[in-house]
């Protein structure tokens, strides 16, 4: 177990390092960032002075070393737009994103898991078919379109909910639904198939043969055993919430990490882009590590795989 742990953590560190290098490489492929944030009447010599000051004139290797060194200290440089610590900006936006992702995840657990369980238990019933239709639709509907249509109906026409921004609990409703839609469709399908697998296991047949009540068979034996794949898969999929947040937050003007990233990309605010993308990647990788470790701990076969 220890060897597995060490190997897996070492691998994660390597991936994080490589990912950071990829971010650096990607961002340096682009044009000259310095030009965008200059006063209106800037002269050529001032541009060079600023470029010098920001270190864009140094050899790429030096810039790279400085970047990695900075990351280790949590320093991604200063936002070109706001002239503030880039990582600080990212961290400020984090609670809003966590809140939204947490709400979406809670909604998913409350809605999608029971849906998947029931669909599996009543396989081929009308309910099963309806829930299949719902999940297929959920997976096919683009989040940004769903968001716009919700805004049109509930904010523009009915005026029940605010169009966006963060304020009271009402502000949370539409973004949560949009972010949860795709995710819960996935989780409902996964739950259903995991439950179906579990329902075909021998011990379930045995339990039924013993004459146990069906609710007890499902509650105690099946659900417990299918919980492992459901939780791990749900955990793995949770990373996708970070991607979904990019679009959802932009539509609903939700002041989170995703919106910050899109705006930084639009403004070509490189320090912030690098901080946000690197941060997301690290969180994502750590999430994968945790899920993997949990899985390995729950299911010893994995360790040797």
């Amino acid at each position: 177990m220890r060897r597995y742990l060490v190997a897996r953590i070492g691998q994660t560190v390597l991936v994080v390092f490589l990912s950071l290098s990829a971010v650096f490489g990607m961002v340096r492929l682009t044009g000259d960032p310095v030009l965008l944030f200059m006063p209106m009447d800037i002269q050529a010599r001032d541009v060079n002075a600023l470029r010098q000051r920001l270190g864009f004139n140094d050899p790429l290797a030096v810039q790279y070393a400085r970047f990695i060194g900075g990351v280790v200290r949590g320093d991604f440089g200063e936002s070109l737009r706001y002239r503030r610590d880039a990582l600080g900006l990212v961290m400020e936006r984090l609670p809003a994103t966590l809140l939204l992702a947490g709400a979406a995840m809670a909604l998913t657990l409350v809605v999608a898991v029971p849906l998947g369980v029931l669909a599996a238990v009543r396989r081929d019933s009308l309910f099963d078919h309806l829930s299949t239709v719902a999940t297929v639709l959920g997976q096919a509907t683009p989040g940004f379109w769903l968001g716009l249509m919700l805004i049109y109906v509930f904010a523009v026409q009915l005026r029940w909910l605010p169009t966006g921004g963060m304020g009271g609990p009402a502000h949370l409703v539409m973004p949560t639904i949009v972010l949860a839609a795709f995710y819960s469709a996935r989780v409902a399908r996964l739950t259903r198939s995991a439950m179906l697998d579990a329902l075909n296991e021998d011990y379930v047949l045995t339990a039924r043969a013993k004459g146990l009540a069906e609710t007890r068979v499902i509650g105690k034996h099946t659900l417990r055993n299918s919980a492992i794949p459901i939780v791990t898969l749900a955990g793995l999929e949770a990373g996708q919430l970070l991607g979904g947040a990019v679009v959802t937050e932009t539509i609903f003007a939700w002041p989170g990490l995703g919106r910050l990233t899109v705006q930084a990309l639009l403004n070509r605010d490189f320090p912030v882009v690098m901080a946000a993308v690197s941060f997301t990647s690290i969180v994502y990788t750590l999430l994968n590590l945790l899920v993997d470790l949990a899985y390995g701990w729950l299911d010893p076969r994995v360790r040797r795989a």
Partner: protein
Amino acid sequence: MHVLWVLIVALTAAVLGAPAAHAQDRARSKEIVVGLGAEPRTMLAVMIVDWTTNAMLEHIYDRLLDRDAKTFKPKPMLATEWKVVNDTTWEFKLRRNVKFHNGEPFTAASVKATIEFALDPANKSHFAGNAYWGLVKEVQIVDDYTVRFVTKQPWPNLVDSAALVNSLIMPAKALKELGPAKLAEKPIGTGPFRFVEWRRDERLVLDRNPDYWAGPADVSRVTFRFIPEFSARMAALLSGEIDIMKDVPPHAVEAIERSGRAKVRATVSSRINYLALVTLKPGPMQDIRVRRAMNHALDVDELIKQVLKGRATKMCGPLAPANVDYAPVECYKHDPARAQALFKEAGVDPTRLTLTLDTPSGRYPLDKDISLAIAAQLQRLGITTNVVVNEWGTHLDKIKNRNTGDMFFLGWGPALYGQATVQPLFIGDQTYASYGNNKTIDEKIARAGTLLDPKARADAYAELQRLLHDEAPWVFLWQQHDLYGVAQHVEWTPRADEKVWMYDAKVTPR
């Protein structure tokens, strides 16, 4: 699982806070919520050239001079009088008994400290540039209420500069003792509103300053909410979440007026829109006949009527009447036959001409739609136009790097005095220029920028406007109309200089 719920509840409580007050409660307590497209980029004065940032900041800080809302001429604010001492020295008399929000008295020391802050390279202020305070050699304190600006060369536009957000004044003592970082967290000015809080990417809250030197504002609290999309701002206005929004598109005016909840207030802006015909890189636009043909080819009146629903004022030369240095010039007439003749003279066959037009999207009223409409108009002459739609940063980047197509669409403003338009836009080595390297014009612009005598200055700019009209560096388009949506219970009149000034707003509880 319990842990998750506790986390969610705690986060909800921490992040959401108290819900915003309802429109009617706000009317009673005289609060106003203004919806803007972006958040401020700093809380420090004289740091960043950005309309949105400074529109909010000038509620906290006062300028040296204000502008008359009608004539756009400078008028007293923190300074009460100003005069030219000699070719390179301006003197300002300052208002007495003005206090900063922290109690510190306003004196000449604060003016000196603020300008020096802007000029200090360590602060990386945009205002250190030559169009802002870069020409200032030294600020001298004559006594507590008299201050002198010594310039590196004769600089008649100093007074114009002092009557803009370029001159928002910060407190000298606090700047020194607390430092810029602390002031940026909790800004201190002399303005009619005091800083309360800034929730990033969400809102900026300011409370009325009861001790304001010109008397307290009618509005007790101003909240700026940052809502990037027009449609979201509009929904927020109609549902009573906000009371004032900027940039209502012409097609939405009717919907707002019909709603009964808000009205539209319009003003002719000093901001101009133009179609640059790029001469700084090889292409058909280097031929003056082609540029003039373009001016005859496009039907500006139709663009204003059909696309902007009449919400723009046609412009015939590089400066608009809102500009203090404006002089009338004759318009290019819409005349396709004349355009065809000019193309022929230049040896250009319009049916084989393919042009590229760069446009931003969403920066100016219906900018992208106007560009597409221009392409459609050129199509009538057989000219093929590829419209390239850029996001705003890329658009500026392309202009700065001279990477645009043969034409690009841009707005410029607030354009209140001549030099601030002709110098940056018609001299070849300037960042945003599309035209330049014309010796005669270069010299005349340089000279106009040093004339202190009003008559000589007027003549110089009149001549420049004639010359530039004949050179046809742009297709001259129009002055924007700024359209604001204003809630029924708020009385407020917009200004041509784009100052969104809530000190002037009145709230009438219903």
